[in-house]
């Protein structure tokens, strides 16, 4: 499944709802669905706020299902991330004046099984994540 959206904030709910609909064939629990929706929402919001800012641009969301695992990638062609390790630190944000909590990557990491971020300054950012649906529930510990 491939979804290409403009970088407007109204599309955040659209994007996560489409991914949620796509994964229903895996018969996810309410919690698994919420996990994936949150992770997608975080990734798309990052592209809109940090990747593009005031510039116009496209965000491409690509999903595949292999066995019981959903793989999701979110790509933008925005400004990119200079220091990925720093960006992924919980509570770190470059936009405190916008009341960004700095929890975006932390939530993606907590709610998905795997998270990989690739970025090049001036070229954009690719977030890849996957989650196996229907495995034993594990409790999420406070960060």
């Amino acid at each position, binding site marked *: 499944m491939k979804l290409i959206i403009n970088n407007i*904030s109204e599309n955040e709910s659209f994007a996560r709802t489409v991914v949620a609909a796509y994964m229903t064939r895996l018969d996810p629990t309410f919690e698994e669905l919420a996990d994936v929706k949150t992770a997608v929402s975080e990734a798309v919001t990052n592209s809109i706020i940090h990747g593009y800012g005031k510039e116009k641009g496209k965000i491409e969301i690509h999903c595949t299902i292999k066995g019981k695992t959903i793989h999701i990638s979110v790509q933008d062609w925005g400004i990119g991330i200079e220091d990925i390790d720093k960006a992924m630190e919980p509570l770190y944000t470059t936009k405190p004046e916008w009341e*960004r*909590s700095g929890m975006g990557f932390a*939530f993606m990491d907590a709610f998905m099984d795997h998270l990989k971020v690739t970025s090049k300054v001036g070229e954009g950012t690719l977030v890849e994540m996957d989650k196996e649906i229907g495995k034993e529930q594990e409790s999420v510990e406070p960060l």
Partner: protein
Amino acid sequence: MQKNSKMVHYEVIQNCLVIYISNDLDHHTVTLLRDYSDRLIEAGNIRHIVFDFTDVDFMDSSGIGLIMGRYKKVMFLGGKAAVSHVGEMVNRIFGLSGLYKIIEKYDTAKDAVEALTKGGKAV
């Protein structure tokens, strides 16, 4: 599609502002809610704020920013912030973010208002 005016309603009980959110909380809706609640706080006579989540099914990290921002505002006024009627999904997000270290959770908005206004008098 819901109109913005239906996304939220509020009431003021003594010096406590209760905001009933009735939509998903993401970056888009948070931007609208932030202005809405700040106007109400700045209109005066508000010391505490309660966010009621009865009708909220989804929230991402943008919601944390909203609550934290309002918490700082009322703290400056000598008040407190609280959340009520928090569902399972939102509760996980709050728990994971560590928000409960600084903000109290109550079963209902009424419980929150009672606790906050009592505490307010004691200060």
